[in-house]
């Protein structure tokens, strides 16, 4: 039986969140009434000319540098010629040879192992208009009677990020998408909202027998718009292609569509012949020249990237999972660092922040900065737990009260009488009392039957109103019931 492996490449489109569009001064905001964010340029009226948005160029340079790409000193805008009603000029301004950035890579973490995904190129292009299909097709292009066109989105700057076919599993693909989203968000160049389409994936999948050198025929599934769907699409395609091949069939080179509801990909109508885009340098646009000085200016303005943040948080003691969660939220990460600075153990601070604190903010729908928690208070809390002054359940109660803004952990534990009693005299008095009332249980234990031991612990804790350190209680009881 053949063992198969998948070869996966991903093209990601990221809409940059600039104020204006890529080549005109219309707002880069597709919301609003149809065709109200349009001008001669983005409607491709006769005579209109494109002028590139300098901020968008900075955005792509940031992305390219963050992905460790080489920046081409001279890069060129091309026209990609094809007719489609949502493309006003019937050509898209894009890039072909000499894209802005090439030869980068991204490190992702899958099940604790680091995987490097090569980035072939990062190039600049413009978005198309939006089509609404009307008729019997239920909003789908198939069966539609006519189509309505809104060009508000036409011309919004798009960055396309293309990977090498380095990805082998759907899990890796998902991890890649997630890491790319984190990077783009950290750079602040896009809102990278998958559900809103401001970040979307085209997934190329092929399969081949393990050990084969040649690539199998690939399919491209377009506009997948969630990380979960990326994973499901790939799983489905791998499975489908293997079945086709094992049944003696051939995988067709085609574009497919992912249906979220049915969980399957279906073939889009294939063109009889492959597109001939007649790429040529756009004569309306000058070459883009990125001098080394400009490059280093952009580079020095880059924020800390998520991978670096995670590594730094880990060196402060956060475990891997917590480091990941903290790195995704600059507010949480800042609290964490403050707490560690104030003496908290990184491990404990990380667990509290990513567990109870995140759960609380979600539940109450508040931002962590709006709560009463500070790094200092978190450090105080963890110190009290470590010193045995708070049981873990009491610590949770204290933390919630801190979050609610009721004061510092010490004050709260005091006023709510949640402090643990480690005073041996008080505990011994309680033990005396319990043992006196349960002489038969003591006899059983001394006779080798340990069953009643837990019962005795419970009785002592009850006597103490739950505020005794259970470990101390156990130790003392063990001594007193020993034969």
């Amino acid at each position, binding site marked *: 039986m053949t063992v198969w492996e998948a070869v996966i490449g991903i093209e990601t489109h990221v809409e940059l969140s600039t104020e204006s569009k890529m080549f005109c001064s219309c707002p880069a905001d597709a919301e609003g009434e149809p065709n109200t964010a*349009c001008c001669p340029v983005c409607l491709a009226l006769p005579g209109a000319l494109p002028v590139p948005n300098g*901020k968008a160029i900075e955005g792509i340079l940031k992305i390219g540098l963050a992905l460790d790409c080489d920046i081409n000193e001279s890069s060129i805008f091309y026209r990609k010629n094809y007719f489609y*009603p949502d493309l006003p000029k019937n050509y898209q301004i894009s890039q072909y040879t000499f894209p802005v950035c090439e030869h980068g890579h991204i490190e992702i973490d899958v099940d604790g192992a680091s995987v490097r995904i090569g980035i072939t190129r990062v190039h600049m292009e413009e978005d198309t208009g939006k089509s609404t299909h009307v008729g019997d097709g239920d909003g789908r292009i198939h069966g539609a009677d006519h189509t309505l066109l809104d060009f508000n989105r036409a011309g919004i700057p798009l960055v396309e990020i293309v990977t090498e076919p380095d990805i082998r599993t759907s899990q890796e693909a998902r991890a890649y998408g997630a890491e790319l989203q984190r990077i783009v968000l950290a750079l602040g160049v896009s809102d990278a909202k998958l559900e809103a389409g401001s970040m979307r994936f085209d997934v190329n999948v092929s399969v081949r027998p393990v050990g084969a050198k040649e690539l199998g025929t690939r399919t491209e599934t377009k506009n997948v718009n969630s990380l979960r769907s990326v994973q499901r699409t790939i799983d489905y395609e791998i499975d489908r292609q293997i079945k086709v091949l094992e049944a003696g069939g051939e995988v067709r080179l085609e574009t497919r569509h992912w249906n979220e509801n049915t969980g399957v990909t279906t073939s889009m109508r294939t063109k009889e012949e492959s597109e001939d885009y007649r790429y040529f340098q756009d004569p309306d646009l000058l070459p883009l020249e990125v001098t080394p000085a400009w490059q280093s200016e952009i580079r020095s303005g880059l924020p800390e990237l998520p991978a670096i943040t995670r590594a730094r948080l880990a060196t402060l003691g956060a475990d891997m999972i917590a480091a990941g969660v903290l790195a995704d939220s600059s507010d949480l990460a800042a609290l964490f660092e403050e707490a560690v600075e104030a003496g908290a153990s990184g491990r404990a601070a990380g667990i509290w922040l990513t567990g109870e604190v995140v759960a609380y903010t979600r539940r109450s729908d508040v931002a962590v900065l709006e709560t009463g928690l500070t790094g200092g208070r978190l450090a105080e809390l963890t110190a009290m737990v470590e010193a045995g002054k708070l049981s873990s359940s009491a610590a949770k109660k204290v933390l919630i009260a801190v979050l609610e803004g009721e004061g510092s952990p010490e004050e709260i534990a005091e006023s709510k009488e949640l402090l643990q009693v480690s005073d041996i005299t008080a505990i011994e008095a309680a033990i005396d009392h319990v043992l006196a009332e349960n002489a038969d249980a003591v006899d059983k234990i001394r006779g080798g039957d340990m069953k009643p031991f837990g019962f005795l612990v419970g009785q002592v804790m009850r006597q103490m109103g739950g505020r005794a350190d259970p470990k101390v209680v156990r130790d003392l009881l063990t001594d007193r019931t020993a034969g």
Partner: protein
Amino acid sequence: MPVEIDIVKVAALARLALTEEELDTFGSQLGDILEHAERVQALPTDGVPPTSHPLPMVNAFREDVTAECLDRESFLRSAPDTAGGQFRVPRILA
């Protein structure tokens, strides 16, 4: 020698619905013009870079600021078919 071209394919690529007769006429005219244009191939151009733009200029950018958009009616009134503030076209798939 006139250049032989697949005029049907070229017309389809250019989205021009031409009649058989037009295809014949244009096909042979293009062949003649290309025979003439082919003369450019006689010139040795090894190592000569292409000119896409007559002046050696680079980096023309806009500031990222918005300006007023067109009033929708000002262009929709010239559109062949509209509905609800949008352009309307026939079905896309056959």
